[in-house]
């Protein structure tokens, strides 16, 4: 499906813009004939009133041409801008509908570029396309047809020159466009090297690699220059060559014209008109070449945008029957990320009762986050099933399911706006008391107090004006405002000091909801009702702290790496 279907609501504008351009162009095509009349009738016969009349006709043509052209510009701007607005809306909506899998695969950086730079490029392309697509060929071929009306034999020069000119323009384009892409790639390399030298400055200096970095940069820089010169050499030929061809054609035209005038089949004014048509072609060709470059870039952007729009949410929806069982059940669950070689989770099996606290622990990359991401159905598990309240998560409406779950993500993300607005993400209708309570429970009282305007203090983009610990506590409060059935804390106390974390733990304990606490620290989860121990995606232990200490070697190792034996009685 082409994105141009979004132009449909601007069908009228998209048709009228080129149409008015055509009207404007046709007046331009008549001008040489009027001048020829001035010469052949006005000057030859000394008919001054006729000259005056023709002058007024020229002025009138100018005014009418201006009116048509302004109308065309308006319609094309309206169509192009409206199209871009619609396109951005569709893209944004599409991205909102993606599941985590699509977001992972495409990457947010790419999505942002599609929504900004690529849409702008398409807008410029559509605008220029509507204005020039018909106009340029119309002037070129119109000039040829007009030439036929002036003199058939002389017009044959046009028949030879025009295809030749088109072949040259397209040949240069075909050769240089891929080369320009290559240049862009090389520029990106130079850009990345510059960035690397800044971000890695300490390592480069510590390993005394300044000189080698300079050499590598110079190499990329020279290679860029070489490509630029090469493609420059090719595109530099376009204008001179077309100029030469048009002028040689003019010479032929005058020569043929002279013979025709000699035998009385053509007038002097007619020769002038033919000459004028040829020069009009030259001007239009330059515009046409520029349009092709712009449209080509726009088409590349269009392709990229379409690949986003045709990506479909892969999250499964099934009909499921209700079973009588524990609140949350992981039934032989495995998860392999799309395109990954090894499973991130394999054969996870456990049950949780309502109100229980579950600790999830394991090393870097052991699958802790993957496990909790299955509860709100962010990903589809590849085998087995995850059931909540007796129904498969795939049977729930994802939105309804997520309404019941409060999540504190690993990365403490806040949005631009006030602290209050951020907290209200959890529940738009939360009262002042509910907000205050959530803040208090999340140990964020002092964060609010330290702000001049309290809850109404502004949060900068990404929460840059808050420290990591402050952000983390506010994201906890945001999840608590939701008053969820299930609360998931994904390693979200890592930036808190030990005393604050302990206090937070105490508060959470009093909440009636079912809690999942992901951590690398045994201290954070030792009190949980059940602990799941993960290692390389496998469930290597499930039980209470005491049970695991005696039965699970991995758990014991983690524990001992954090608490030397002598301190173990302190838990």
């Amino acid at each position, binding site marked *: 499906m082409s994105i141009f279907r979004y132009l449909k609501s601007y069908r009228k504008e998209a048709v009228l813009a080129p149409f008015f351009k055509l009207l404007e162009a046709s007046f331009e095509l008549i001008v040489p004939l009027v001048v020829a009349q001035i010469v052949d009738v006005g000057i030859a016969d000394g008919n001054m009133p006729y000259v005056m009349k023709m002058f007024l006709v020229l002025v009138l043509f100018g005014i009418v041409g201006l009116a048509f052209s302004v109308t065309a510009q308006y319609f094309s701007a309206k169509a192009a801008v409206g199209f871009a607005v619609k396109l951005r809306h569709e893209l944004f909506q599409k991205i909102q509908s993606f599941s985590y899998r699509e977001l992972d695969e495409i990457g947010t950086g790419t999505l942002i570029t599609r929504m900004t730079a690529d849409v702008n490029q398409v807008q410029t392309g559509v605008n220029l396309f509507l204005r020039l697509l018909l106009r340029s060929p119309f002037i070129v071929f119109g000039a040829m047809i007009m030439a036929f009306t002036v003199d058939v034999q002389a017009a044959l020069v046009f028949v030879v020159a025009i295809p030749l000119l088109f072949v040259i323009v397209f040949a240069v384009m075909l050769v240089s466009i891929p080369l320009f892409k290559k240049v862009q790639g090389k520029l990106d390399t130079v850009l990345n090297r510059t960035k690397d030298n800044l971000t890695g400055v300490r*390592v480069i200096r510590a390993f005394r690699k300044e000189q080698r970095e300079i050499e590598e940069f110079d190499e990329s820089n020279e290679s860029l220059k070489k490509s630029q010169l090469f493609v420059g050499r090719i595109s530099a030929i376009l204008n001179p060559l077309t100029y030469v061809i048009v002028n040689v054609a003019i010479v032929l035209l005058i020569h043929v014209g002279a013979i025709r005038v000699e035998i009385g089949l053509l007038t002097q004014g007619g*020769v002038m008109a033919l000459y004028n048509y040829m020069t009009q072609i030259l001007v239009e060709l330059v515009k046409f070449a520029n349009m092709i470059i712009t449209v080509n870039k726009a088409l590349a952007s269009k392709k990229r945008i379409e690949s986003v729009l045709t990506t479909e949410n892969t999250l499964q929806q099934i009909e499921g029957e209700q079973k009588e069982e524990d609140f949350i059940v992981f039934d032989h669950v495995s998860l392999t990320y799309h395109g990954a070689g090894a499973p991130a989770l394999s054969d996870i099996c456990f049950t949780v009762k309502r109100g229980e606290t579950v600790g999830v622990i394991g090393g870097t990359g052991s699958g802790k986050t993957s496990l909790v991401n299955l509860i709100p159905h962010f990903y589809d598990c590849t085998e087995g099933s995850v059931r909540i309240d007796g129904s498969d998560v795939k049977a729930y409406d994802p939105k309804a399911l997520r309404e019941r779950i409060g999540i504190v993500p690993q990365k403490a993300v806040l949005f631009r706006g006030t602290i209050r607005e951020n907290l209200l993400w959890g529940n738009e209708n939360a009262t002042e008391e509910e907000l205050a309570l959530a803040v208090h429970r999340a140990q964020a009282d002092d964060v609010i107090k330290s702000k001049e305007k309290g809850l109404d203090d502004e949060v900068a983009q990404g929460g840059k004006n808050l420290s990591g610990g402050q952000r983390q506590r506010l994201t906890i409060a945001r999840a608590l405002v939701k008053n969820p059935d299930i609360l998931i804390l994904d390693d979200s106390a890592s930036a808190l000091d030990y005393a604050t974390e302990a206090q937070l733990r105490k508060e959470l304990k009093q909440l009636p909801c079912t809690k999942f606490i992901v951590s690398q620290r045994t201290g954070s989860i030792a009190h949980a009702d059940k602990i799941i121990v993960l290692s390389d995606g496998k469930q290597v232990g499930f039980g209470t702290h005491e049970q695991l200490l005696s039965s699970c070697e991995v758990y014991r190792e983690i524990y001992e*790496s954090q608490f030397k034996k002598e301190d173990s009685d302190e838990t």
Partner: protein
Amino acid sequence: MKHKLTVKKILRLVSKYRFYILLSLLFAIGTVALTLYIPILIGHAIDAIVEPGQVDFEKLSPLLIEIAVMAICVGVFQWIMNLANNRIAYLVVRDMRKQAIRKIQALPLSYIDSHAYGDVVSRVIADVDQFADGLLMGFTQFFTGILTILGTVVMMIKLNWEIAIAVILLTPLSMFVAKFISGKTYSLFKKQTQVRGKQTAFIDEMISSQKVVQAFTHEDETLKAFDECNEELGKWALKATFFSSLTNPSTRFINNLIYAAVALLGAVFILFTPWGGALTVGGLNSLLSYANQYTKPFNEITGVITELQGAIACADRIFEFLEEKELSEEAKEELGTVEGNVSLENVAFSYVPERPLIQNFNLTVKKGERIAIVGPTGCGKTTLINLLMRFYDVDEGSISLEGEDIRTVTRWSLRKNYGMVLQETWLKRGTVRDNIVMGKEDATDEEVIAAAKSAHAHSFIMRLPKGYDTVLTEDSLSAGQRQLLCIARIMLVLPPMVILDEATSSIDTRTELKIQEAFNKMMKGRTSFIVAHRLSTIREADVILVMHDGNIVEQGKHDELLARNGFYAKLYHAQFEA
């Protein structure tokens, strides 16, 4: 005059290519002169074709040959001019970037730390490009534009001075219209940029946190907010696009008026020939084609002037960067053999003079000792490392190595003796091997693998598609894996002194414990500085420096500090309270 100074610097920069500049200018003059001459020839040719039976073929043929030859000359001249311009532009771009990378290596870290990377990168990439495009291309357009206008005026005067004057009087009209429109669109474009910036920020924020948006089922609200902003952008974009696209039709209109006026006046002169009747039909044809191309350079020049101003602004930003103060001059002397005896005497340092950080700090470290630096996040632990490696120089006092003030020896010979692993893992674009051998490029495969093994990186490296030859991209490794690679990097070199700045912060505690053994082996006999917030990893240090708000508040061994029951004891106990 800042502008004048910048122009002077630009001239100095391009003077290297004066041959090409001269070439470009000469061929520009040639191109313009011949382009203007051709309509005259065509006019003569048309004059030779009057009526049936009266065509002067003897006069016509050489004229036509001349036109063809001239046209070919224009083509060649223009091509040579284009090539010369390309050469100047791309070579100057290359030169500027070459200077820039050398500048980056010579800048003190204080500059790099205090400036956004994006800003420097945009100067080196975008500004340099815009400068080259704007200045060099703009300059030739400006030059040929002026030449064309002057040439056209001269030619028209020669053909018929009365009509020429009429055309010259009418031209300001075109410029006035163009200026009016561009003035109007400027404010619209500014508004559009503003709204677009707002929208981009919104997109950036929401799309990068899309997962959170979904977790809070906030899709509908977000889309609504986006649409509001989107509609507003559409409104301004329409205005800006429409008004800016008026320039061409309007100036074309003025152009058409001038064209009509020339046709009328020309006919009048030919018919009534009041002053001797010098104008012919061919002459009128030439006048008409001049009138047609006369206003074009005017439009171009108005565009070029803004482009030139933009280019000079870019040049300013580039020169500003290239003229930044560089590192203090390098000492001549090389540091001798290092055993690892470090001493800091009365050291004072601050990043900004108004906020004193380290003051009157003394520390003596003997060969093989282990120094741990602890404290809450953001307390300035990294500062000490900046000073030891001479990324920054002390304000007062001195740091010496083997009794030699480190400012009296070359930075290279100093840094050679340190192995460093930082919290922020930086990997080079390149293969895994490239990254491990940074400190020792002639290392054998066995050495590389041994280093990777002791950093516990070997097994995950082998699981990568091409093992040690896998090319790393920005996010092909997890934070923990990146850190393991950085550790392998120094395991290969084993310099006499080691700095570990939160070297294991992204690695899980079990793996950390295993690496710790390797670290312990490595640190044996080596002076080491360890920054950590996990207290368990530093218990065995010979000296623990406890930092708080940039100051060293306590100093001593673990047991001493615990016994003192101060800040360290507080930190320590907080960790083990369950």
